[in-house]
Every structure is written in C-alpha cells, then in structure tokens.
C-alpha cells in the first residue's frame, strides 16, 4: 500500500532527506500505522463538527502597543551563520 516511492515523496514534503536504508523500514512502519488508524473509517461522521481545539476561545488579541522584544543581536546569537545583521543561508536562487 505504501511504497518506498510514496515514502520518499512524503519525506520531500516534510523536507527530510532519507538515507536509502531508512526508506524501506519507514514504508513498512507507516503502512502498519495507517492500517491501524483505518479503523476511523468505520464511523459515520457526516453530521459531526470537527474539534480542532477544546477551548471556547478565539481571536485572542492584545492592545496594539509597542513592547520590548528580543533584540536583533539576541536573535542572531542563536544561528550558526550570520552576516550584516541577517541570517546567512546557502544560495536560494541559482
């Protein structure tokens, strides 16, 4: 049901490079898990509203006033590569 090709596709959607030896067992694992969760298909849920969140809260706002936050320096301190006040990354466009 889940092929190695499917696993590689999902891995690429997940931005994970998989080593060859990982793809096969992961295909088996995912198939096993999907077979288990297939039991959800037995229920009739046509009339049921989804619950994405249990609290009766929505759109929590605060007053729009400027407050102290992390400085540029504090933020950049955590990265492995920075330049001129920015995060430095490998080339994005060829």
């Amino acid at each position, binding site marked *: 049901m889940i092929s190695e090709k499917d*696993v590689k596709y*999902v*891995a*690429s*959607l*997940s*931005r*994970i*490079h*998989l*080593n060859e030896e*990982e793809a096969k067992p*992961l295909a088996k*694992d*995912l198939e*096993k*898990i*999907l077979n*288990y*969760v297939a*039991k*959800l*298909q037995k*229920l009739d*849920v046509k009339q*049921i*509203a*989804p*619950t*994405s*969140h*249990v*609290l009766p*809260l929505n759109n*929590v706002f*605060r007053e729009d006033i400027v407050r102290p936050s*992390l400085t540029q320096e*504090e*933020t950049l*301190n*955590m*990265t*492995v*590569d920075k330049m001129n006040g920015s*995060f430095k*990354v*490998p*080339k*994005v466009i*060829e």
Partner: protein
Amino acid sequence: MKLFSLTAHEILDLLKAKKVKAEDVVSSVKERIDSVETRVHAYARVFETREIASEGNENLFPIPIAVKDNICIKDNETTCASKILKGFKPPYDATVIAKLKGAGAVFTGNANMDEFAFGSSCETSCFGPTRNPWDLERVPGGSSGGSAAAVAADETIWAIGSDTGGSIRQPAALCGVVGLKPTYGLVSRYGLIAFASSLDQIGPITKDVRDSALLLNIIGGYDENDSTSVDTPAKDYTKSLISDIKGIKIGIPKEYFIEGIDPEVGLSVKAAIEQLRSLGAIVKEVSLPHTEYAVATYYITATAEASSNLARFDGVQYGLRSIPKEQRKNPIVDMYEETRNQGFGLEAKRRIMLGTYALSSGYYDAYYLRALKVRTLIKQDLDKVFGDFDAIVTPTSPTTAFKIGERMDDPVSMYLSDIYTIPANLSGIPAISIPCGFSKNNLPIGLQIMAKAFNEEMIFKIAYTYEQNTGWHKKRAGI
C-alpha cells in the same frame, strides 16, 4: 531520614521550623544524584551551580526541581533530547520557569525525555534511555520519563513535565509517583517547545498529592503570552486536600477493562475502586463508547500538528545546520533536508512524515478532518458522563513498566501504551495518576482520576483521600 527522600511539603515544614537550611536540602539532593544518576540516567544534563536565592524568606519554596528538557530556561541549553537543538540556548524563560524562579526554586537539571516528547518509554532520546528506578532493565515510561524517574529515584524533590497524550501520567504510573495533567489552558505553555499545540500541557510530577497541589499553585494561572491560556481566578489547591469523598459520584468506563490490560493492573485498579466505594464514593459503571478510536484519533491529530510545529527546525535560526557534500536539489533545500535528516531521530521522522501525509492533498479529508470529527465524538462521550458524575476512574496504563527495547520495533504497540491517557488530552480535561499498588515483581501500578475541565479540586480531593487511606506513595524504589 535523608533529606533527599522527603516531599517538598515536609521540607517546607522543616525550613519553617528552622530545623534545616535550604542548602542542606540542595546538597543532599546533589549527593543523591552523584550516587545513582549513572545507573538511572534521569537527566539530559545536571546543573553544576545551584543558586539559592531565597534563604530566610518564608514565602519562598527553595525546593530542588528537575525540568523536562523541552521547557526553556534562559541561557541554559534546552534540546528536547534532540540532536537538532544541540547547543540551543533560549534567550528567555518559559512562564513556568519565571514563576518557579520567583518562588525561589532551585533547578537540579534538565530531565531526559523522548525526543520532542515523541514516545512512551524515554528510549528515543538522543542521550540514550532513562532507566526505571524500580527495575533498571525496564523503561520509566515517557515522554516525561526522566522527570518521573528523577522523582522516583529521589534525584530531585519534584519535577515538571509535559503531557500531550499521557506523557506525565504514564511515566508517573510506571515509576510509582504522582503525575498531573492540568486542564488545557490552566498552565501557560509559553516557552514549552511545542509538539501538538491543541493537546500539550505542562504539569507537576511529585512524590505525593499534596506536593502536586503545591506545585500547581506555583505554575498555574493566566499568562497573556500564551493565547490559549484561560483567565480564571487563582486558586489554592491545597484547600482541596480533604480526606472525605462521601457521596462523590465516580464513573468506571467499562471499555477500559477489556483486551490488552495486564491482569495484575486490572486487579489492582479494581481493588482501588472498591476502596473508593468503601470510603463513601458512589461508584457506577459508565460507557465511553468511542474509546477504541482514541489512539487512532490522537496519532493523526498529534502528528499533523507536530509536522507543522517542527517545520521551524530548518537549520536557519538556531540549532543544528548540516549541508550535504554533493548538491541534490538546490543549495537551500539541500540544507533543510540534510539538517532534518541528521537532526531528527527515527521516531521524529516517522511522526513528522505521518502528520505530513495526513495533511497532504488527497488525504486531508480522509485522515485529518475525519480524526477531528472523531475527536468531537470522544469529547462528547466524556461530557455526557460528566453530566451525571464528578469523576472518572481508570487504570493509567494497561501494563506495568516494560523492558527496554521491547516495543521499539513496533510503533503501534508503543502507541497503545497511551490508550487510557489520550482521551483527557483530546477533550482538554484534567487527569492525575497516583500509585495504587504493585505487581508481583514489584513494579508500580497507577490509578487515573479524571474530572471536568478546571475542576482540579475534585481530582485532588479523591486522590488525596485514596492516598491517605492506603499509603502506596510511601513505598520507595529501592535503588
């Protein structure tokens, strides 16, 4: 009596009576860590310096506490037991840490955990497994296994963990300690590195019920930095510690005592239920008909949320960055993919990929949306019972602690460890695990008590009454 073996409230009494000094307690716990940590491995890292800021101030709690490795302490490496966060030092304190600092807490170290809280055994940690203090060949449970093992081995006085599908309660049960998952929204999650945001909750792991209430007093309450924090009036939970449950209505879900439950666990929990009845509770069987769908619902919703939350670990802003030697796609995508390949362990990859699959085009309705709808059914089951009952009592885990390695090759059997704890997360209600006996081979068994949202008082009352009339919590791991 060694100071490290005491509860926080016992130590506070001694401090108030000026019979001991905070530094004596701190050094006692340090000696204990030095003598047993190599065998238990409860910590991802043990702190060398332990500041005691509170000597002489009676309103403070200078109690040693272990912090799960997914809760940010400013300028202290915090890694979720994952290689991908190696070297990450948060620039701010989680709200619970700020509250604990304000209360004079002394941090002992970061407790080990399953990587990103993905697991029920503490075996997926990049630091290697934590061992159960009751039997070093066995797991402590997970994902807050390090926190629970540290408390059970007296390597801390108390601890905090996080619970997404049972990650506080299941290890508490397997280690013979008390673990509380508070109501969703009661404890701020600001500074908790997110796993599944609609389910995660921080809570206390302690040696007894009084300590659980005391620690919840410190860490609970509204926080504007967490948009899911609920603004409820502050409570003193120690006021609920009354040994009296006469007339309290307790439901026992019949679906929780069927296939897969270890007979010894079943017997212990049934004996505990009889004890609650003899203490005056009104006990009746109830039905939670969608119980068998809880694990499947959870593994879709939790992994979907995790796949989104963990997208931030891409090598750009913090943590590991890894670049492959040869170009595969294009330079930046290669960096993302190789960083995540090197940084995440196998279970993290499995869950991120499962969640991505469930959210992907063509599968969203069949998996994710359907799981959200079944979540509604599971919540409705509980709401219905709570219309007539004050609490629901169940086993915490279907088995006692299993052997290290036993379930690592079978994700589904590992996931089923959380079958009894997941419904409380899916519906947001509070639940506690307290010790209720031991198996023939001396492994702890846990009793779970659930109540309505924001009714932690009911949980504490029942848990305290049971504990005071039985005394299982006094038995300590003989390490």
